[in-house]
Structures are given as C-alpha cells and as structure tokens.
C-alpha cells in the first residue's frame, strides 16, 4: 500500500487522473464528498487529500510515502525529500513584478512584497542586492499600488491579474510545475512500487 499526499483542488484532480492512467484508478469523489482519505478497490494505493502547502510536511515526516507538490513550495520550504519527477502540470513562473511605470534605483534598498520570503531572499542574495522583505499572505498585487513595496515576487500564470492592476513581470526567477516527491525512508522500503510509479509517469510524459 502506497500513501499518496495529494493537494486538494484542481492540481489534485489532474494528478488522480494521471495515476488512473498508470494503473492506480480509484473512485471519483462527488462534490459533496468530504472524505480526506480515498483508497482504491484492490488496496494498492491510498490518496490523502491535503492542503497544498502541507503536502511537503506529510511526506517529509513519513505520514505519506509520496506526494505531489509545486516547485514553488519545495523551493520555499526546502523539505528533506526526494524529487523524483516533473509532472509537467501546473506550469507557471515565479517572477519579480513591478508597476508599469517603475524604474529601479540600484542605490536604494528594494522593498519586496511576497508570499515567498525565502525564494525572494535567495534570489536577491544571488545578485547581491540589498532588500527589505514584506511578507504577505494574499493580494500581493496591492502592495506596490499602495506604495507598501517597490516590487513583488509572485507566481505568474496568465498575467491577467497583473495587467488589471497596472503591473508587469520584470524578471522570471523560477520555473514552476508540480513534482512527484517521496519520503527518503519510504523510498528505501517501498522502492519497487515508488520506482514503478515514477517510471510510468515519466513514460506518460514521454521522458
């Protein structure tokens, strides 16, 4: 039995379809279904439906053997896990974004609003730029509009929200997609099943 930590929501639904395609089909929960654990009929796989940002914790601590987690959360939280495959879904970019009329002043400390302080800090460290991090939990685009920050570091999918708030992406700093991750201890004791799943997912993606 493999325990799979899946992010609740759109990505989780897509991942369940991928697992169904490689032979781990299980019943489709309906809209009113509030179960957080779903097991397939032959007892080979158990899906744990988890808040996306918690998937890494479940896998790192061995409550789940494998899981699916965005590269943004992996990079931000740096869990001690294996990253076995790129599922090529949920693709987007982490970007530095700024108001359309913004001009960088390299002589000043840059104020950066973000949900991802570690990613922002590591990026600006790598280019030797002094910054002040403003950690926010949502509506990041509002920060430069109200003068709370100079720029933001955030996920850009289509760019529509940015455009509607007179912002634009200045610089992509990280390619994001959903990744198959594994607990380091589970990988040793269930290596055949985990490697089998990894291989089939890669084959499905033509890798």
């Amino acid at each position, binding site marked *: 039995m493999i325990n799979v930590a899946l992010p609740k929501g759109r990505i989780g639904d897509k991942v369940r379809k991928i697992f169904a395609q490689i032979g781990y089909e299980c019943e489709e929960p309906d809209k009113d279904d509030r179960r957080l654990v779903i097991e397939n009929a032959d007892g080979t796989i158990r899906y744990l439906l988890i808040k996306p940002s918690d998937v890494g914790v479940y896998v790192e*601590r*061995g409550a789940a053997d494998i899981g699916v987690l965005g590269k943004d959360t992996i990079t931000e939280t740096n869990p001690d896990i*294996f*990253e*076995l495959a*790129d599922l090529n879904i949920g693709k987007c970019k982490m970007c530095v974004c700024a108001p359309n009329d913004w001009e960088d002043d390299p002589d000043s400390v840059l104020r950066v609003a973000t949900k991802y302080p570690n990613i922002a800090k590591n990026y600006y460290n790598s280019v030797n730029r002094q910054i002040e991090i403003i950690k926010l939990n949502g509506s990041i685009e509002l920060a430069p509009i109200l003068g709370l920050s100079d720029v933001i570091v955030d996920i850009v999918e289509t760019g529509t929200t940015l455009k509607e708030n007179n912002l634009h992406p200045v610089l992509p700093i990280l390619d994001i997609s959903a990744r198959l991750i594994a607990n380091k*201890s589970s*990988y*040793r004791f269930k*290596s055949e099943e985990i490697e089998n799943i990894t291989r089939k997912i890669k084959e499905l993606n033509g890798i």
Partner: protein
Amino acid sequence: MESEISILKKSELAELKLRRLYEQYGYQKYRMNQFEEYAFYIENKNFLGSDSFITFNDKDGKLMALKPDVTLSMVKNTAADMAGSKKLYYSENIFRFIKNAGEYRELNQTGLELIGKVDLLSTAEIVTLAAKSLEIIDASYVLTVSHMGIISGLLEEIDADYTVKERIMECISEKNPHDLRKLGESAGIDIDIIERIEKLISINCLLNAASEALDSIVCNFTTFEAVKEIKAISEIMTGSKYADRIRVDFSSVSDMQYYNGILFSGYIEGVASAVVVGGRYDNLLRKMNKGNLQAIGFAVNFYELDRFLKEKSNSSGLQTVAIKYSEKADLKKVYEIAEKYIAEGKKVVCETDIPENAEYEKIIEIDENGEVSCK
C-alpha cells in the same frame, strides 16, 4: 540481572547493546566535556550543517557553546597517528537546533570513530558495524552506501562555478534528474557528463549487484579509484548476512570540504529520516592540521528513534499489583503487603482510588476493617 534489564526502555537497551557491540570490535569509550569554545564550532559549521548553537559566557567572558556534535571534539583531541589508530565510541547527549521542532533539543547520540589509518578491511568493518547497529534497533532496516570520490570525480569534469556544482550536488541528493538536465543545458555542461550523473542518480541496487552500473559512470582516475573501493568492499562482504541489506544509492551527499570517501545512511522502516549517518572524513583532519591521518565513523541518532522505540515497547515489562486501601485501614498491613509483592519482584502501586479501566495483574483491596480481597 534479567529483572533489572526488563525495566530498561527499548532505547536504553539499544544503547547498551550498541556499546557492547562496539566494545567487541575493540572500540574504547570516549567521554567529553559538555561544551567547547563557540569559535571552534562556528569554524566548522558546514561540517555540522548548522550555525545555531546554545551559547553562554564562561567566568572569563569567553563565549562557549553546548556541544552540538561529538566527532569534531574527538578529532581535535585525538592522540592517534598512522602507526597507532584510535578506535573510539561514545554515547553522549548533544544540543542541536531541530528544524522540524523549531527549537533546540537535547538528544542522545551514540557512535564511533576510527582515527589514524583506514584501509579496506577497516572500512568494510565500519560498514558492517553500521548495519549491525541498525539490526540492534530493528529487524527491518536498510543501509545505503555512497562515495564522495565518485561525486567529486564527476564534478572535476565540469567547468562551471561552485554555485552550479552545488546545485548539481543538490540534484544528486534529491534524486532529481529533471532539474539536473535543465541546469546542464543552461550552464552548457557536456551532455555525456550529465548523462553519467543521471545514471548515478538512478542507481538503487544491492551492493553486490552494483558493479555494472558503477562501471558505466567511470570517466576519470578519481571515479575509477572510488568505484574500485566500493567493489573491493563488496568483495570482502560477499557471503555476509548483512550484504543483502546494503544498497548502493548516491543520494547521500556530504560537504566535500570534509568528506572524501565512502558515505552511508541507515534507515529503519517506520522512521521518517536516516537514523545512522556516517562516512570517511579525511578532509576534516586536513582542515584541522592533523597531517596525513585518516578517519571514518558514524553516529546513531536517537532523536527520531525514541518515539519509534517507545511505540514498540510495553511499558516497563514488570507485572503490576495494585493495592487499593481505605484511608481508615491499618496502614502497617498495607505497607507489609506492598513490601511482600515488591520482594517477589512485582511492581506495586498503592492508591486509595483506582480507576475502573486500569489494567493490573492483580488488584488487592484492603477495607477499613482490615479485610483483604483480591481481583
């Protein structure tokens, strides 16, 4: 003696068994101070993997730190030389910042170090001791073996700055071939080397079945010598009952400033992270001006193990007799009955009130008239 042993917790018993095992192999107990100068630890923060220590000032104002590690002090104070190796083991409490707990913890670490001359036989012996240590803790275990020589040999072939090489090492430790491939493309690294590293990442097989996969990675003298060493250790261990628990897997990667040879990590089924970690660290001795001395060792971390072993054990193992007495009862009689059962080797609890769902081997009730009844 058996009854004394029965009260030990599983982790305490495991620690004693480990000590006995290490003594059998000629290792001597090493005892150290609880603290060292802060500067000593901060100079070697990469070896420790942390720069967070519990610090305090001694009476002369010198900044000290509670020890976060034992190996560094052993190396610093070693009297070993190439003609007289030191085989030392320890079982000490150390003080570390635990990321998952978000605070400092005092935790037990038991381990051993061989400092002086390390040859193939002693390396095979240490690998066997790491496997035997895991076996003492639980029957379901795996020891993975890696080699820094292979990793550094592959990195020698790459003409890129250290940040790229660091990221390659991260990809190896994450078993992450997809980001490695992208990194190779963006940094203009020879595809042949990237493919060899991808092969390295994919290796996950028994030690005695790794020969062909290891040969496919060799690309220079450093990788050749490292592969030769793994094969020689495999050859020595052929037929050993531990050989089929040892897998070659290069996701164990350590800082090249300190580690230079074989590395290993041990896992117990049901414990989320490695419980045994060790390897060859001659480079640490170079860094600490210890001439040509060589060293290898490992530590068993009890932090994760404590909960695992607790869940597997049944309290103290002693059978318990409960004595429920009335406050008006003859207390001398209660005292005498309790002493009688203790002399028989039982665990005894005397209470005026005993919960209904409590489980005891026997419950003795003494009422206010001195009447004794048993359940």
